[in-house]
Protein backbone atom coordinates (compact mmCIF):
# COMPACT_ATOMS: atom_id res chain seq x y z
CA UNK A 1 0.00 0.00 0.00
CA UNK A 2 2.76 2.42 0.90
CA UNK A 3 4.12 2.23 -2.63
CA UNK A 4 0.95 3.45 -4.33
CA UNK A 5 1.65 6.68 -6.13
CA UNK A 6 -1.45 7.42 -8.19
CA UNK A 7 -3.68 9.98 -6.61
CA UNK A 8 -6.76 8.47 -8.24
CA UNK A 9 -6.29 5.12 -6.52
CA UNK A 10 -7.27 4.27 -2.97
CA UNK A 11 -5.57 6.84 -0.74
CA UNK A 12 -2.84 5.72 1.59
CA UNK A 13 -4.11 6.44 5.09
CA UNK A 14 -0.61 6.59 6.51
CA UNK A 15 0.76 8.83 3.77
CA UNK A 16 1.20 12.47 4.71
CA UNK A 17 0.71 14.59 1.60
CA UNK A 18 -1.75 12.21 -0.06
CA UNK A 19 -4.29 12.11 2.74
CA UNK A 20 -7.39 12.09 0.50
CA UNK A 21 -10.97 11.43 1.53
CA UNK A 22 -13.24 9.19 -0.49
CA UNK A 23 -16.59 10.88 -1.19
CA UNK A 24 -19.20 8.25 -2.06
CA UNK A 25 -21.56 8.98 -4.94
CA UNK A 26 -24.46 11.10 -3.63
CA UNK A 27 -27.90 10.06 -4.80
CA UNK A 28 -29.77 13.39 -4.87
CA UNK A 29 -32.59 11.93 -6.98
CA UNK A 30 -33.38 9.41 -4.27
CA UNK A 31 -33.79 12.16 -1.67
CA UNK A 32 -36.13 14.19 -3.89
CA UNK A 33 -38.27 11.12 -4.65
CA UNK A 34 -38.35 10.22 -0.97
CA UNK A 35 -39.55 13.71 -0.01
CA UNK A 36 -42.32 13.62 -2.61
CA UNK A 37 -43.45 10.17 -1.49
CA UNK A 38 -43.53 11.18 2.17
CA UNK A 39 -45.60 14.29 1.38
CA UNK A 40 -48.15 12.19 -0.52
CA UNK A 41 -48.31 9.64 2.28
CA UNK A 42 -48.89 12.28 4.97
CA UNK A 43 -51.73 13.73 2.89
CA UNK A 44 -53.36 10.34 2.46
CA UNK A 45 -53.10 9.38 6.13
CA UNK A 46 -54.44 12.79 7.12
CA UNK A 47 -57.51 12.50 4.92
CA UNK A 48 -58.23 9.01 6.18
CA UNK A 49 -57.89 10.08 9.80
CA UNK A 50 -60.36 12.92 9.35
CA UNK A 51 -62.91 10.85 7.40
CA UNK A 52 -65.92 10.36 9.70
CA UNK A 53 -67.35 7.59 7.53
CA UNK A 54 -64.50 5.38 8.70
CA UNK A 55 -65.84 5.33 12.28
CA UNK A 56 -62.48 5.13 13.98
CA UNK A 57 -64.25 4.57 17.30
CA UNK A 58 -65.63 1.26 15.96
CA UNK A 59 -62.14 0.33 14.81
CA UNK A 60 -60.86 1.14 18.30
CA UNK A 61 -63.61 -0.87 19.99
CA UNK A 62 -62.95 -4.03 18.03
CA UNK A 63 -59.19 -3.89 17.45
CA UNK A 64 -58.49 -5.73 20.73
CA UNK A 65 -61.82 -7.51 21.19
CA UNK A 66 -61.86 -11.08 22.46
CA UNK A 67 -63.63 -12.37 19.35
CA UNK A 68 -60.86 -10.87 17.18
CA UNK A 69 -58.15 -12.51 19.29
CA UNK A 70 -59.92 -15.87 18.97
CA UNK A 71 -59.93 -15.42 15.19
CA UNK A 72 -56.28 -14.37 15.23
CA UNK A 73 -55.30 -17.50 17.13
CA UNK A 74 -57.10 -19.68 14.58
CA UNK A 75 -55.55 -17.79 11.67
CA UNK A 76 -52.08 -18.21 13.18
CA UNK A 77 -52.25 -21.91 13.92
CA UNK A 78 -53.94 -22.56 10.60
CA UNK A 79 -51.14 -20.71 8.80
CA UNK A 80 -48.45 -22.54 10.74
CA UNK A 81 -50.04 -25.97 10.37
CA UNK A 82 -50.84 -25.53 6.68
CA UNK A 83 -47.30 -24.33 5.97
CA UNK A 84 -45.85 -27.27 7.93
CA UNK A 85 -48.05 -29.70 6.01
CA UNK A 86 -47.21 -27.95 2.76
CA UNK A 87 -43.46 -27.92 3.37
CA UNK A 88 -43.31 -31.52 4.61
CA UNK A 89 -45.49 -32.99 1.90
CA UNK A 90 -44.04 -30.61 -0.70
CA UNK A 91 -40.49 -31.80 0.02
CA UNK A 92 -41.59 -35.43 -0.31
CA UNK A 93 -43.28 -34.64 -3.63
CA UNK A 94 -40.23 -32.72 -4.84
CA UNK A 95 -38.01 -35.71 -4.11
CA UNK A 96 -40.54 -37.99 -5.85
CA UNK A 97 -40.52 -35.74 -8.90
CA UNK A 98 -36.71 -35.90 -9.06
CA UNK A 99 -36.64 -39.68 -8.60
CA UNK A 100 -35.81 -41.99 -11.46
CA UNK A 101 -38.86 -44.15 -10.73
CA UNK A 102 -41.57 -43.44 -13.31
CA UNK A 103 -44.32 -44.39 -10.83
CA UNK A 104 -43.16 -41.90 -8.19
CA UNK A 105 -42.67 -39.26 -10.86
CA UNK A 106 -46.12 -39.89 -12.32
CA UNK A 107 -47.90 -39.82 -8.96
CA UNK A 108 -46.24 -36.61 -7.87
CA UNK A 109 -46.88 -34.91 -11.21
CA UNK A 110 -50.54 -35.88 -11.01
CA UNK A 111 -50.78 -34.40 -7.52
CA UNK A 112 -49.22 -31.11 -8.55
CA UNK A 113 -51.36 -30.98 -11.69
CA UNK A 114 -54.61 -31.47 -9.75
CA UNK A 115 -53.96 -29.19 -6.79
CA UNK A 116 -52.33 -26.38 -8.74
CA UNK A 117 -54.84 -26.59 -11.55
CA UNK A 118 -58.02 -25.93 -9.57
CA UNK A 119 -58.92 -22.74 -7.65
CA UNK A 120 -58.12 -22.80 -3.95
CA UNK A 121 -61.61 -21.55 -3.17
CA UNK A 122 -63.06 -24.62 -4.93
CA UNK A 123 -60.75 -26.91 -2.94
CA UNK A 124 -61.76 -25.29 0.35
CA UNK A 125 -65.45 -25.68 -0.39
CA UNK A 126 -64.84 -29.23 -1.60
CA UNK A 127 -63.20 -30.29 1.67
CA UNK A 128 -65.83 -28.40 3.64
CA UNK A 129 -68.62 -30.33 1.97
CA UNK A 130 -66.80 -33.66 1.47
CA UNK A 131 -69.26 -35.27 3.88
CA UNK A 132 -71.89 -34.93 1.16
CA UNK A 133 -69.70 -37.13 -1.04
CA UNK A 134 -68.69 -39.75 1.51
CA UNK A 135 -70.75 -39.80 4.67
CA UNK A 136 -68.44 -42.39 6.26
CA UNK A 137 -64.66 -42.81 6.22
CA UNK A 138 -63.77 -46.51 6.23
CA UNK A 139 -60.53 -48.43 6.37
CA UNK A 140 -60.88 -51.93 4.97
CA UNK A 141 -60.39 -54.10 1.90
CA UNK A 142 -61.82 -52.42 -1.21
CA UNK A 143 -64.79 -54.05 -3.00
CA UNK A 144 -65.23 -56.78 -0.36
CA UNK A 145 -67.33 -55.06 2.24
CA UNK A 146 -64.72 -55.89 4.90
CA UNK A 147 -64.24 -52.86 7.15
CA UNK A 148 -61.79 -52.55 10.04
CA UNK A 149 -62.65 -49.09 11.32
CA UNK A 150 -65.06 -46.41 10.18
CA UNK A 151 -65.79 -42.84 11.19
CA UNK A 152 -68.60 -40.43 10.59
CA UNK A 153 -67.15 -37.92 8.10
CA UNK A 154 -68.75 -34.91 9.74
CA UNK A 155 -67.15 -35.68 13.11
CA UNK A 156 -63.66 -36.01 11.58
CA UNK A 157 -63.79 -33.37 8.90
CA UNK A 158 -64.64 -30.37 11.06
CA UNK A 159 -64.41 -26.97 9.36
CA UNK A 160 -60.96 -26.46 10.90
CA UNK A 161 -59.66 -29.81 9.63
CA UNK A 162 -61.18 -29.20 6.21
CA UNK A 163 -59.53 -25.78 6.11
CA UNK A 164 -56.18 -27.25 7.10
CA UNK A 165 -56.39 -29.99 4.48
CA UNK A 166 -57.43 -27.61 1.72
CA UNK A 167 -54.72 -25.05 2.48
CA UNK A 168 -52.01 -27.62 3.25
CA UNK A 169 -52.52 -29.80 0.18
CA UNK A 170 -52.71 -26.78 -2.10
CA UNK A 171 -49.56 -25.38 -0.52
CA UNK A 172 -47.75 -28.69 -0.96
CA UNK A 173 -48.28 -28.50 -4.71
CA UNK A 174 -46.64 -25.08 -4.88
CA UNK A 175 -43.94 -25.83 -2.31
CA UNK A 176 -42.88 -28.96 -4.16
CA UNK A 177 -41.98 -26.85 -7.17
CA UNK A 178 -40.01 -24.42 -5.02
CA UNK A 179 -38.12 -27.21 -3.28
CA UNK A 180 -37.46 -28.96 -6.59
CA UNK A 181 -36.00 -25.77 -8.07
CA UNK A 182 -33.89 -25.38 -4.93
CA UNK A 183 -32.50 -28.90 -5.12
CA UNK A 184 -31.80 -28.56 -8.83
CA UNK A 185 -29.93 -25.31 -8.24
CA UNK A 186 -27.23 -27.17 -6.31
CA UNK A 187 -24.23 -28.19 -8.45
CA UNK A 188 -24.30 -31.99 -8.99
CA UNK A 189 -20.58 -31.91 -8.15
CA UNK A 190 -21.59 -31.30 -4.53
CA UNK A 191 -23.39 -34.63 -4.25
CA UNK A 192 -20.54 -36.36 -6.09
CA UNK A 193 -17.99 -34.94 -3.66
CA UNK A 194 -20.14 -36.12 -0.75
CA UNK A 195 -20.55 -39.59 -2.26
CA UNK A 196 -16.82 -39.84 -2.89
CA UNK A 197 -16.29 -39.29 0.85
CA UNK A 198 -18.52 -42.26 1.62
CA UNK A 199 -21.62 -40.27 2.53
CA UNK A 200 -24.89 -42.10 1.89
CA UNK A 201 -27.67 -40.50 -0.16
CA UNK A 202 -29.77 -39.53 2.87
CA UNK A 203 -26.80 -37.98 4.69
CA UNK A 204 -25.76 -36.20 1.49
CA UNK A 205 -29.23 -34.73 1.13
CA UNK A 206 -29.42 -33.62 4.77
CA UNK A 207 -25.91 -32.22 5.21
CA UNK A 208 -24.88 -31.07 1.74
CA UNK A 209 -27.70 -30.61 -0.77
CA UNK A 210 -30.65 -29.31 1.28
CA UNK A 211 -28.69 -26.67 3.25
CA UNK A 212 -27.50 -25.24 -0.08
CA UNK A 213 -30.94 -25.55 -1.64
CA UNK A 214 -32.33 -23.55 1.31
CA UNK A 215 -30.69 -20.40 -0.03
CA UNK A 216 -32.91 -20.64 -3.08
CA UNK A 217 -35.94 -21.99 -1.21
CA UNK A 218 -36.28 -19.48 1.63
CA UNK A 219 -37.16 -16.23 -0.18
CA UNK A 220 -40.10 -17.75 -2.13
CA UNK A 221 -41.18 -19.68 0.99
CA UNK A 222 -41.33 -16.37 2.84
CA UNK A 223 -43.66 -15.19 0.13
CA UNK A 224 -45.71 -18.36 0.42
CA UNK A 225 -46.07 -17.91 4.18
CA UNK A 226 -47.25 -14.33 3.80
CA UNK A 227 -49.66 -15.44 1.11
CA UNK A 228 -50.92 -18.27 3.28
CA UNK A 229 -51.57 -15.93 6.19
CA UNK A 230 -53.87 -13.92 3.98
CA UNK A 231 -55.38 -16.87 2.12
CA UNK A 232 -56.65 -18.29 5.39
CA UNK A 233 -59.29 -15.56 5.01
CA UNK A 234 -60.82 -17.71 2.28
CA UNK A 235 -61.77 -20.42 4.76
CA UNK A 236 -64.43 -18.06 6.13
CA UNK A 237 -66.65 -19.58 3.41
CA UNK A 238 -66.81 -22.81 5.43
CA UNK A 239 -66.98 -21.00 8.78
CA UNK A 240 -63.65 -22.08 10.20
CA UNK A 241 -63.64 -19.21 12.76
CA UNK A 242 -60.45 -17.60 11.54
CA UNK A 243 -59.90 -13.84 11.84
CA UNK A 244 -61.87 -13.07 8.69
CA UNK A 245 -64.79 -15.36 9.65
CA UNK A 246 -65.16 -13.54 12.94
CA UNK A 247 -64.86 -10.11 11.31
CA UNK A 248 -67.65 -11.06 8.90
CA UNK A 249 -69.75 -12.28 11.78
CA UNK A 250 -69.45 -8.88 13.43
CA UNK A 251 -70.27 -6.74 10.42
CA UNK A 252 -73.16 -9.01 9.52
CA UNK A 253 -74.71 -7.74 12.77
CA UNK A 254 -73.54 -4.13 13.10
CA UNK A 255 -73.21 -3.29 9.36
CA UNK A 256 -69.88 -1.51 10.00
CA UNK A 257 -68.22 -3.21 7.04
CA UNK A 258 -65.43 -0.72 6.32
CA UNK A 259 -64.28 -0.20 9.93
CA UNK A 260 -64.25 -3.97 10.50
CA UNK A 261 -62.21 -4.45 7.34
CA UNK A 262 -59.78 -1.84 8.67
CA UNK A 263 -59.46 -3.89 11.86
CA UNK A 264 -58.75 -7.01 9.80
CA UNK A 265 -56.25 -5.21 7.57
CA UNK A 266 -54.37 -3.75 10.53
CA UNK A 267 -53.95 -7.21 12.04
CA UNK A 268 -52.93 -8.86 8.78
CA UNK A 269 -50.41 -6.06 8.20
CA UNK A 270 -49.00 -6.45 11.70
CA UNK A 271 -48.60 -10.23 11.33
CA UNK A 272 -47.00 -9.98 7.90
CA UNK A 273 -44.53 -7.40 9.23
CA UNK A 274 -43.61 -9.70 12.10
CA UNK A 275 -43.00 -12.55 9.66
CA UNK A 276 -40.16 -10.72 7.96
CA UNK A 277 -38.04 -11.10 11.12
CA UNK A 278 -37.68 -14.90 11.04
CA UNK A 279 -37.26 -14.75 7.27
CA UNK A 280 -34.31 -12.37 7.51
CA UNK A 281 -32.77 -14.58 10.19
CA UNK A 282 -33.17 -17.72 8.09
CA UNK A 283 -31.70 -16.05 5.03
CA UNK A 284 -28.63 -15.05 7.01
CA UNK A 285 -28.37 -18.52 8.56
CA UNK A 286 -28.37 -20.30 5.20
CA UNK A 287 -26.44 -17.62 3.33
CA UNK A 288 -23.21 -18.49 5.13
CA UNK A 289 -20.22 -18.68 2.86
CA UNK A 290 -21.90 -16.90 -0.02
CA UNK A 291 -20.55 -13.56 -1.12
CA UNK A 292 -23.98 -12.41 -2.31
CA UNK A 293 -25.69 -12.97 0.99
CA UNK A 294 -24.80 -9.64 2.59
CA UNK A 295 -27.79 -7.47 3.36
CA UNK A 296 -27.17 -3.77 3.03
CA UNK A 297 -29.52 -1.72 5.23
CA UNK A 298 -31.75 0.61 3.23
CA UNK A 299 -30.46 3.73 4.98
CA UNK A 300 -26.88 2.82 4.06
CA UNK A 301 -27.98 2.32 0.49
CA UNK A 302 -29.54 5.80 0.48
CA UNK A 303 -26.39 7.36 1.89
CA UNK A 304 -24.25 5.39 -0.54
CA UNK A 305 -21.88 4.15 2.15
CA UNK A 306 -21.77 0.47 1.38
CA UNK A 307 -18.54 -1.05 2.48
CA UNK A 308 -19.53 -4.30 4.14
CA UNK A 309 -17.16 -7.06 3.20
CA UNK A 310 -17.60 -10.79 3.30
CA UNK A 311 -14.50 -11.20 5.42
CA UNK A 312 -15.82 -8.91 8.12
CA UNK A 313 -19.24 -10.47 8.11
CA UNK A 314 -18.05 -14.01 8.49
CA UNK A 315 -15.45 -13.15 11.10
CA UNK A 316 -18.35 -11.91 13.19
CA UNK A 317 -20.21 -15.14 12.55
CA UNK A 318 -17.24 -17.35 13.29
CA UNK A 319 -16.98 -15.63 16.65
CA UNK A 320 -20.43 -16.80 17.71
Amino acid at each position, binding site marked *: MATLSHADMKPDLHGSDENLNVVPLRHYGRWIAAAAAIAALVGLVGSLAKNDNLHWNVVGDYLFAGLIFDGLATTLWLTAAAMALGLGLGTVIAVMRLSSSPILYGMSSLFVWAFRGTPLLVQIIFWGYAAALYSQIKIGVPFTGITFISWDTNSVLTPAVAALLALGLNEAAYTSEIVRAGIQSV*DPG*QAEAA*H*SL*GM*RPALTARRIVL*PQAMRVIIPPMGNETINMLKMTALVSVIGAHDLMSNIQEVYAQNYQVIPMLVVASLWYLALVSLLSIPQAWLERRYG*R*GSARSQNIPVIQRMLGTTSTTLARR*TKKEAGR
Partner: protein
Amino acid sequence: MTTPMVQAKGVTKNYGKLEVLKGIDLTVERGQVCCLLGPSGSGKSTFLRCINHLEGIDGGTLTVDGDLVGYRRHGQKLHELREPEIAQRRRDIGMVFQRFNLFPHMTALQNVIEAPVNVAGIPRVQATQEAHRLLEQVGLADRADHYPAQLSGGQQQRVAIARALAMKPKLMLFDEPTSALDPELVGDVLDVMRNLAAEGMTMVVVTHEIGFAREVADTAVFMDEGVVVEAGDPRHVLVEPEQDRTRAFLSAVL
Protein backbone atom coordinates in the same frame (compact mmCIF):
# COMPACT_ATOMS: atom_id res chain seq x y z
CA MET B 1 2.80 -61.11 -5.00
CA THR B 2 0.33 -58.78 -3.32
CA THR B 3 -3.00 -57.83 -4.85
CA PRO B 4 -2.73 -54.71 -6.98
CA MET B 5 -4.48 -51.61 -5.63
CA VAL B 6 -6.39 -51.08 -8.88
CA GLN B 7 -6.92 -53.72 -11.51
CA ALA B 8 -9.04 -53.18 -14.61
CA LYS B 9 -9.65 -55.95 -17.11
CA GLY B 10 -11.55 -55.19 -20.28
CA VAL B 11 -13.61 -52.42 -18.68
CA THR B 12 -16.30 -51.06 -21.00
CA LYS B 13 -18.73 -48.22 -20.50
CA ASN B 14 -21.46 -46.83 -22.75
CA TYR B 15 -23.59 -43.73 -22.56
CA GLY B 16 -26.53 -44.88 -24.63
CA LYS B 17 -25.07 -45.74 -28.01
CA LEU B 18 -21.84 -43.89 -27.35
CA GLU B 19 -19.03 -46.28 -26.40
CA VAL B 20 -16.84 -44.27 -24.06
CA LEU B 21 -14.57 -47.02 -22.70
CA LYS B 22 -13.81 -49.87 -25.08
CA GLY B 23 -12.00 -52.40 -22.93
CA ILE B 24 -9.52 -50.78 -20.55
CA ASP B 25 -6.78 -52.95 -19.05
CA LEU B 26 -4.78 -51.29 -16.32
CA THR B 27 -2.94 -52.26 -13.15
CA VAL B 28 -1.79 -49.91 -10.41
CA GLU B 29 0.35 -51.50 -7.74
CA ARG B 30 0.30 -50.47 -4.10
CA GLY B 31 2.23 -47.25 -3.44
CA GLN B 32 2.50 -46.39 -7.09
CA VAL B 33 1.52 -43.25 -8.94
CA CYS B 34 -0.25 -43.73 -12.26
CA CYS B 35 -0.79 -40.75 -14.53
CA LEU B 36 -3.54 -40.88 -17.16
CA LEU B 37 -3.06 -38.67 -20.20
CA GLY B 38 -4.93 -38.21 -23.42
CA PRO B 39 -6.94 -35.82 -25.53
CA SER B 40 -10.26 -34.36 -24.43
CA GLY B 41 -13.14 -36.84 -24.62
CA SER B 42 -10.88 -39.88 -24.55
CA GLY B 43 -12.62 -41.23 -21.43
CA LYS B 44 -10.07 -40.42 -18.72
CA SER B 45 -12.58 -38.87 -16.32
CA THR B 46 -15.10 -41.58 -17.02
CA PHE B 47 -12.59 -44.30 -16.17
CA LEU B 48 -11.54 -42.51 -12.99
CA ARG B 49 -15.18 -42.19 -11.92
CA CYS B 50 -15.70 -45.90 -12.53
CA ILE B 51 -12.94 -46.66 -10.02
CA ASN B 52 -15.07 -45.32 -7.13
CA HIS B 53 -18.36 -46.24 -8.78
CA LEU B 54 -19.60 -42.72 -9.40
CA GLU B 55 -20.33 -44.40 -12.74
CA GLY B 56 -21.25 -48.06 -13.19
CA ILE B 57 -19.42 -50.18 -15.76
CA ASP B 58 -21.06 -52.17 -18.54
CA GLY B 59 -18.50 -54.92 -19.00
CA GLY B 60 -15.20 -56.33 -17.75
CA THR B 61 -14.03 -56.32 -14.14
CA LEU B 62 -12.63 -53.57 -11.98
CA THR B 63 -11.20 -54.24 -8.53
CA VAL B 64 -9.76 -52.00 -5.86
CA ASP B 65 -7.55 -53.80 -3.35
CA GLY B 66 -9.03 -57.08 -4.50
CA ASP B 67 -12.70 -56.03 -4.06
CA LEU B 68 -15.00 -55.61 -7.03
CA VAL B 69 -16.06 -51.98 -7.26
CA GLY B 70 -19.80 -51.56 -6.78
CA TYR B 71 -20.67 -55.19 -7.52
CA ARG B 72 -20.86 -58.58 -5.88
CA ARG B 73 -20.12 -61.71 -7.82
CA HIS B 74 -22.63 -64.56 -7.84
CA GLY B 75 -21.38 -67.35 -10.11
CA GLN B 76 -21.01 -65.77 -13.51
CA LYS B 77 -23.13 -62.72 -12.71
CA LEU B 78 -22.28 -59.36 -11.17
CA HIS B 79 -24.97 -57.85 -8.96
CA GLU B 80 -24.86 -54.13 -8.28
CA LEU B 81 -24.46 -53.36 -4.56
CA ARG B 82 -26.89 -51.25 -2.54
CA GLU B 83 -26.03 -47.61 -1.88
CA PRO B 84 -24.91 -48.10 1.76
CA GLU B 85 -22.51 -50.86 0.70
CA ILE B 86 -21.13 -48.73 -2.13
CA ALA B 87 -20.75 -45.83 0.29
CA GLN B 88 -18.84 -48.10 2.66
CA ARG B 89 -16.31 -48.97 -0.05
CA ARG B 90 -15.95 -45.38 -1.22
CA ARG B 91 -14.66 -44.37 2.21
CA ASP B 92 -11.30 -45.91 1.33
CA ILE B 93 -11.00 -44.08 -1.99
CA GLY B 94 -10.34 -40.35 -1.92
CA MET B 95 -11.24 -38.20 -4.91
CA VAL B 96 -10.15 -34.71 -5.92
CA PHE B 97 -12.14 -32.92 -8.62
CA GLN B 98 -11.16 -30.48 -11.32
CA ARG B 99 -13.55 -27.88 -9.92
CA PHE B 100 -12.70 -28.57 -6.24
CA ASN B 101 -16.35 -29.16 -5.20
CA LEU B 102 -15.76 -27.89 -1.68
CA PHE B 103 -18.96 -27.51 0.35
CA PRO B 104 -19.52 -23.72 0.11
CA HIS B 105 -21.64 -23.48 3.27
CA MET B 106 -18.87 -24.86 5.45
CA THR B 107 -15.49 -23.45 6.44
CA ALA B 108 -12.29 -25.19 5.38
CA LEU B 109 -12.15 -26.95 8.73
CA GLN B 110 -15.80 -28.01 8.59
CA ASN B 111 -15.24 -29.37 5.08
CA VAL B 112 -12.38 -31.51 6.35
CA ILE B 113 -14.14 -32.91 9.44
CA GLU B 114 -17.52 -33.50 7.75
CA ALA B 115 -16.92 -37.08 6.66
CA PRO B 116 -14.76 -38.23 9.61
CA VAL B 117 -17.45 -37.06 12.05
CA ASN B 118 -20.62 -38.01 10.15
CA VAL B 119 -19.43 -41.05 8.22
CA ALA B 120 -16.61 -42.59 10.24
CA GLY B 121 -18.08 -41.54 13.60
CA ILE B 122 -14.84 -40.06 14.93
CA PRO B 123 -15.38 -37.71 17.93
CA ARG B 124 -15.45 -34.08 16.83
CA VAL B 125 -12.55 -33.02 19.04
CA GLN B 126 -10.28 -35.69 17.66
CA ALA B 127 -11.40 -35.05 14.07
CA THR B 128 -10.72 -31.34 14.53
CA GLN B 129 -7.18 -31.98 15.77
CA GLU B 130 -6.53 -34.26 12.83
CA ALA B 131 -8.03 -31.70 10.44
CA HIS B 132 -5.73 -28.97 11.73
CA ARG B 133 -2.79 -31.28 11.14
CA LEU B 134 -3.95 -32.00 7.58
CA LEU B 135 -4.52 -28.32 6.82
CA GLU B 136 -1.02 -27.62 8.06
CA GLN B 137 0.29 -30.39 5.83
CA VAL B 138 -1.22 -28.68 2.77
CA GLY B 139 0.07 -25.30 3.94
CA LEU B 140 -3.23 -23.80 5.05
CA ALA B 141 -3.01 -23.88 8.84
CA ASP B 142 -4.13 -20.23 9.01
CA ARG B 143 -7.12 -20.64 6.71
CA ALA B 144 -9.15 -23.12 8.78
CA ASP B 145 -12.02 -20.70 9.43
CA HIS B 146 -12.29 -19.35 5.90
CA TYR B 147 -15.20 -20.23 3.68
CA PRO B 148 -14.35 -21.58 0.19
CA ALA B 149 -15.47 -18.27 -1.38
CA GLN B 150 -12.70 -16.56 0.60
CA LEU B 151 -9.96 -18.85 -0.71
CA SER B 152 -8.06 -18.81 -3.98
CA GLY B 153 -8.48 -21.70 -6.39
CA GLY B 154 -5.18 -23.23 -5.36
CA GLN B 155 -6.07 -22.97 -1.69
CA GLN B 156 -9.48 -24.50 -2.32
CA GLN B 157 -7.92 -27.42 -4.13
CA ARG B 158 -5.50 -28.02 -1.27
CA VAL B 159 -8.42 -27.99 1.19
CA ALA B 160 -10.13 -30.51 -1.10
CA ILE B 161 -7.05 -32.73 -0.90
CA ALA B 162 -7.01 -32.42 2.90
CA ARG B 163 -10.73 -33.28 2.96
CA ALA B 164 -10.14 -36.46 0.95
CA LEU B 165 -7.13 -37.43 3.11
CA ALA B 166 -9.17 -37.04 6.29
CA MET B 167 -10.87 -40.36 5.60
CA LYS B 168 -7.42 -42.03 5.53
CA PRO B 169 -7.94 -43.49 2.05
CA LYS B 170 -5.75 -46.23 0.65
CA LEU B 171 -6.14 -44.83 -2.86
CA MET B 172 -6.41 -41.26 -4.13
CA LEU B 173 -7.99 -40.29 -7.46
CA PHE B 174 -7.23 -36.90 -9.00
CA ASP B 175 -9.20 -35.62 -11.99
CA GLU B 176 -7.21 -32.79 -13.57
CA PRO B 177 -6.62 -31.19 -10.15
CA THR B 178 -4.75 -28.20 -11.58
CA SER B 179 -6.64 -27.52 -14.81
CA ALA B 180 -8.92 -24.89 -13.31
CA LEU B 181 -6.07 -22.99 -11.66
CA ASP B 182 -4.14 -19.88 -12.63
CA PRO B 183 -0.60 -20.91 -13.67
CA GLU B 184 1.07 -19.40 -10.60
CA LEU B 185 -1.16 -21.48 -8.29
CA VAL B 186 -0.48 -24.83 -9.96
CA GLY B 187 2.88 -25.33 -8.23
CA ASP B 188 1.49 -25.36 -4.67
CA VAL B 189 -1.02 -28.06 -5.50
CA LEU B 190 1.54 -30.19 -7.35
CA ASP B 191 3.92 -29.85 -4.37
CA VAL B 192 1.27 -31.28 -2.07
CA MET B 193 0.70 -34.17 -4.48
CA ARG B 194 4.44 -34.77 -4.80
CA ASN B 195 4.75 -35.06 -1.02
CA LEU B 196 1.81 -37.41 -0.92
CA ALA B 197 3.45 -39.64 -3.51
CA ALA B 198 6.71 -39.57 -1.58
CA GLU B 199 4.87 -40.76 1.54
CA GLY B 200 3.78 -43.82 -0.41
CA MET B 201 0.15 -42.98 -1.26
CA THR B 202 -1.25 -44.91 -4.20
CA MET B 203 -2.52 -42.37 -6.71
CA VAL B 204 -4.28 -42.32 -10.07
CA VAL B 205 -3.91 -38.87 -11.59
CA VAL B 206 -5.56 -37.54 -14.73
CA THR B 207 -3.38 -34.62 -15.73
CA HIS B 208 -2.04 -32.51 -18.55
CA GLU B 209 1.06 -31.62 -16.52
CA ILE B 210 3.61 -33.61 -18.53
CA GLY B 211 6.48 -32.43 -16.33
CA PHE B 212 4.77 -33.65 -13.18
CA ALA B 213 3.93 -36.98 -14.80
CA ARG B 214 7.52 -37.54 -15.92
CA GLU B 215 8.89 -36.71 -12.52
CA VAL B 216 6.39 -38.37 -10.15
CA ALA B 217 4.62 -41.14 -12.03
CA ASP B 218 5.64 -44.78 -11.86
CA THR B 219 3.46 -45.52 -14.87
CA ALA B 220 2.10 -43.23 -17.53
CA VAL B 221 -0.96 -44.32 -19.46
CA PHE B 222 -1.92 -42.68 -22.71
CA MET B 223 -5.60 -43.06 -23.60
CA ASP B 224 -7.44 -42.16 -26.78
CA GLU B 225 -11.02 -42.84 -27.85
CA GLY B 226 -11.71 -45.18 -24.97
CA VAL B 227 -8.68 -47.44 -25.31
CA VAL B 228 -5.24 -47.50 -23.73
CA VAL B 229 -2.88 -46.67 -26.58
CA GLU B 230 0.36 -46.95 -24.68
CA ALA B 231 1.34 -47.56 -21.06
CA GLY B 232 4.56 -47.94 -19.15
CA ASP B 233 7.53 -46.07 -17.74
CA PRO B 234 6.87 -42.32 -18.16
CA ARG B 235 10.46 -41.85 -19.38
CA HIS B 236 9.53 -43.94 -22.38
CA VAL B 237 5.87 -43.13 -22.91
CA LEU B 238 6.30 -39.39 -22.41
CA VAL B 239 9.75 -38.95 -23.91
CA GLU B 240 10.11 -41.34 -26.82
CA PRO B 241 6.66 -42.89 -27.36
CA GLU B 242 6.24 -45.76 -29.79
CA GLN B 243 2.77 -44.85 -31.02
CA ASP B 244 2.11 -42.04 -33.48
CA ARG B 245 -1.02 -40.93 -31.61
CA THR B 246 0.97 -40.45 -28.39
CA ARG B 247 3.64 -38.52 -30.25
CA ALA B 248 1.04 -36.26 -31.89
CA PHE B 249 -0.61 -35.57 -28.54
CA LEU B 250 2.67 -34.76 -26.78
CA SER B 251 3.82 -32.38 -29.46
CA ALA B 252 0.46 -30.63 -29.26
CA VAL B 253 0.59 -30.28 -25.46
CA LEU B 254 4.21 -29.32 -25.01
